[in-house]
């Protein structure tokens, strides 16, 4: 009995390793069938329906006999799902969307097909350079940008007016505005001057960078956690001030579904991706009436310019184990084409090509998006970074900070964990 049940237990855990034995010779332009069923993974609700429909119709028109299926994945747990799916020849999707900061994990592991020779056809130098660099290893490029979209700040114009506040122009003003806004709205207790749930390190890192700190630095080939430098600690203290004095969000909550508390009238300001506008406008998920009171601005930095926020966005790549390399590359070409990217821009996403930036328009939202993206930064370019994210050491750090812990002590402990995982 013990052996049997223990075996079952090991079976569950052993699944991780399945599929690594297939020594497939695929990758690098292996042709595949004339017609095939192509599976494309896109994540979350970011890709608008119009773009999905266009992609399916256009691809199937151009390749009679082939079909294209779009399978929507959750952002949550995506790296885990890709790790298992991409390593199996029979299970792998052909084309995948992946968060730009998650891409290096897979490019260095050889999970994606080499797109270097196709770069010219896909857009070449016109493709957003930060994204191409992030997906390039030893001169070979394994993914191309899909869209960009750094977070900017949504705020309630009516609440600003009622409290006599104006849009902040630098970091100190921003923090003060957030605190004042919270004070001006004592009810409900969960009201946030600036909504900052404890797990939201992707937002928190902007304050660390703005203060001159970093998550980790490359010290001559050895990666070192850098959260306990004086600059980083100053940034983390700003985070603590905001979390304890300006935010009413759960101290251990995550940043999913910001439209829910926003529509419940519990948020004065929040940092969110541009497509959250769509969720607020949607009568099912949001509160269209509220839109009249919504304003946006790029998070201001200490120097008055835009703060260095996390460069948000997605890449697309071809799975190395896909049997339909040529068709998959055609899909990628369609997804970065001007027509497709125009549809993305109409949904508020910054297009993958610099020449298309004008498509966003020039309203308040477009200006905030462009400004926020102009000073955006990436997570450390270490192949071990996925381990840091996987162990949730950063979520833990920011939750402990939200609880009111000693910042210097917590940062030192986090550095130790990060350094160990990166090397």
């Amino acid at each position, binding site marked *: 009995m013990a052996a049997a049940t223990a075996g079952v237990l090991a079976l569950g855990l052993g699944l991780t390793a399945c599929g690594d034995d297939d020594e497939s010779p695929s990758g690098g332009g292996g042709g595949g069938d004339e017609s095939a069923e192509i599976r494309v993974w896109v994540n979350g609700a970011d890709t608008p329906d119009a773009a999905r429909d266009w992609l399916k119709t256009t691809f199937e028109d151009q390749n009679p006999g082939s079909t294209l299926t779009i399978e929507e994945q959750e952002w949550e747990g995506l790296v885990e799902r890709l790790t298992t799916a*991409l390593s199996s020849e029979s299970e792998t999707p052909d084309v995948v969307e992946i968060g730009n900061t998650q891409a290096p994990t897979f490019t260095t592991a050889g999970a994606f097909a080499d797109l270097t020779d196709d770069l010219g056809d896909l857009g070449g130098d016109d493709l957003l350079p930060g994204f191409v660099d992030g997906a390039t290893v030893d001169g070979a490029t394994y993914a191309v940008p899909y869209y960009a979209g750094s977070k900017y700040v949504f705020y309630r114009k009516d609440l600003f007016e009622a409290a006599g506040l104006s849009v902040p122009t630098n970091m100190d003003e921003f923090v003060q505005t957030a605190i004042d806004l919270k004070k001006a709205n004592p009810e409900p207790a969960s009201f946030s001057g600036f909504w900052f749930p404890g797990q939201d390190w992707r937002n928190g890192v902007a304050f660390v960078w703005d203060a001159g700190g970093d998550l980790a630095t490359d010290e001559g080939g050895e990666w070192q956690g850098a959260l306990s430098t004086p600059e980083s600690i100053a940034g983390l203290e700003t985070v603590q001030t905001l979390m304890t004095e300006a935010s009413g969000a759960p101290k*251990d909550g995550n940043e999913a579904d910001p439209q829910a508390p926003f529509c419940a009238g519990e948020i004065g300001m929040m940092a969110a991706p541009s497509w959250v506008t769509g969720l607020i406008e949607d009568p099912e998920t949001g509160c269209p009436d509220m839109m009249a009171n919504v304003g946006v601005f790029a998070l201001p930095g200490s120097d008055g310019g835009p703060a260095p926020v996390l460069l948000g966005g997605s890449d697309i790549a071809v799975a190395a184990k896909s049997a339909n390399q040529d068709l998959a590359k055609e899909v990628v070409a369609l997804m970065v084409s001007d027509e497709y990217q125009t549809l993305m821009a109409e949904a508020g996403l910054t297009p993958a090509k610099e020449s298309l930036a004008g498509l966003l328009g020039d309203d308040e939202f477009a200006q905030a998006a462009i400004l926020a993206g102009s000073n955006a930064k990436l997570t450390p370019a270490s192949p071990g970074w996925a381990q840091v994210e996987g162990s949730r050491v950063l979520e833990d750090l920011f939750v402990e900070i939200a609880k009111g812990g000693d910042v210097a002590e917590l940062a030192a402990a986090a550095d130790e964990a990060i350094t160990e995982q990166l090397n």
Partner: protein
Amino acid sequence: MAATRSLPAGLPAATPERRPRPPRRRGPLLPYVLVVPAVVALGLALGYPVLRQVQLSLQEFGLAQQFGAPAEWVGLDNYRELLGQAYLWKVVVRSLVFCVVNAGLTLVIGMGVALLMTRMSKPVRLLAQTGLLLAWAMPVLAALTVWQWLFDTQYGIVNWLLTRLGGDYEGHSWLLEPLSFFFVATVIVVWMSVPFVAFTGYAALTQVSEDLVEAAELDGANGWQRLRHIVLPSIRPVLLVVGLLEIIWGLRVFTQIYVLQEAGGVTRETNLLGTHIYRLGIAGGDFGTAAAVAIFMLALTVVLTAPYVRTMLRQEELDELEGTAR
């Protein structure tokens, strides 16, 4: 099953001089032929993953290897590195405590419900059984979503109720402190496993000889004495099996902890063995070390359940003896 069965069979072989005593009747070949498919299926479904796991635990196996790079053999390095980590031992102790508390609570509450069911009128019992069955049949993730909302910091009904009752629970986070986190996890895990114990226990209780209980009652034994000396010993074999299963389940609990960690709490302070392995392996891409922890966990399970299995075997042998004596 295979391992425990081979134990008694191995004994006579080791002491051949005793062998002639009970003259064994040679059975026909058919039963063995019939059992072959099951053994082959077990060997493939369980044997291969275990062997692969052992192999992985001796390799430096990361994401690059997952996508086809050759894996390097590192001998016992993964184990050496692990056993030196204070964190692993913390997780082990945490897992053991969680397992014992949950298995114990589930057994006590489950058997309590089973005893209660024997006293219920038929309609009430049907109602209770339906409720238990629904709790048991509910998909884990669906149940967890409901539980998560019940204990939600901002919109949870638990906070709302406690605030109404005069407590200061507005915006109280149930997952923030590890102890409170494990309290919620325990409530959920126990809620999910009680139906199994209750049903199995109830089935066993219906088999207890009524004559025996009645005789004890006539002899002046009170309720507690009847339970302690007549009922519980009669259902001992069932209790043993259920207890064994509960311990194994308690040790390998994963989904509940994983989902709660995503919802809140501090991951590092709430990892149990299951989530620790997952975060090392699938999430972190360090499959070699994760496999080593998994093997360690397997060993722990075997050690923890060995006394149970021994007792169960002895029970079976006793039953066999009784059977031949009759």
